[in-house]
């Protein structure tokens, strides 16, 4: 697994992973209309990266994507969510008040701040899950690098 998998797997992974990502984004954006939401969408996006990492080998993944990028995304997503919650105090006087207009039901832009929350959570979950996956899979690699 060290140098990735066979050519067939790589080609298919390169072909499939953008579609998985698009599907994840769809799941996040339509969380208030259909089943799904920030959590599953975030995990789906992360799993697209996981697929790429597994098929191309962890060394290449480590060179291209430092885990810090993912963890910055995670902190930023969490902050977005917290700021949205606090804005409720500013605009309506209550923590977690859904302060945006509700809009027309069944449309993409409706339900106040719910879609924004979903985006924040999606960022957070996607970044976080991928970051922890990278650390887990790179754990031995780093160990070896320092031990030798």
């Amino acid at each position, binding site marked *: 697994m060290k140098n990735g998998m066979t050519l067939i797997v790589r080609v298919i992974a390169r072909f499939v992973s953008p579609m998985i990502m698009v599907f994840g984004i769809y*799941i996040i954006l339509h*969380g*208030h*209309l*259909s*089943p*799904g*939401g920030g*959590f*599953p969408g975030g*995990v*789906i996006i*992360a*799993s697209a990266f*996981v697929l790429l990492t*597994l098929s191309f080998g962890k060394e290449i993944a480590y060179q291209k994507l430092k885990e810090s990028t993912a*963890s910055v995304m*995670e*902190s930023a*997503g*969490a902050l977005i*969510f*917290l700021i949205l*919650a606090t804005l409720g105090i500013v605009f309506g006087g209550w*923590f*977690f008040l*859904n302060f945006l207009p*509700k*809009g027309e*039901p*069944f449309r993409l832009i*409706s*339900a*106040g*701040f*719910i879609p924004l*929350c*979903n985006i924040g*959570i999606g960022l*957070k*979950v996607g970044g*976080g*899950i991928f*970051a*922890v*996956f990278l*650390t*887990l*899979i790179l*754990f*031995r690699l*780093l*160990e070896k690098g*320092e031990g030798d």
Partner: protein
Amino acid sequence: MPEIELYLLITLMIVGALVAVHTRYLISAVISLAVVGMALAVAFLYMQAPDIAITQIVVEVLALVILIIAVSIGKEVVDIKGKWETLTIGVTVLFVVIFAIFAYRALADLPPFGSPLMTVSQRYVEEGLKQTGSANLVTSILLDFRAYDTLGEATILFTAILGAFAVLRNIGRKAK
């Protein structure tokens, strides 16, 4: 009449869990565990919970990957047998059976399967769309009525990941 399928699914889950507990090879245990998880996702679909089913499937795949990383890191592939095995198993089984009997009597007091009370949820169902504008009522609860829980949940994920970073550091203390 979805109940028969549900009983079949839960039986499959129990069998899968027993296999996962008793099988000798760690990798087969992980795979049986994944069977349980997937059966759980199907059971969620049968019980009209598509949101949970999606989440369960994606999370299950990820859990499978994580567990396989953990299994492949060690050179031990088989389970360990300890001393006093039969005695410990006997005592534990006795304890578990007593617990089960007590639970069986207690759980009989619950409202029958398929007719929840919905003291509070009735209002979510009736007014959820009007009050929050979200057609998906689960999302409306998750991000509006009980958004504070979701903040906590996001924080838990953040905490666990931060914790994993902390635990996986190579050097904990600085050399003097």
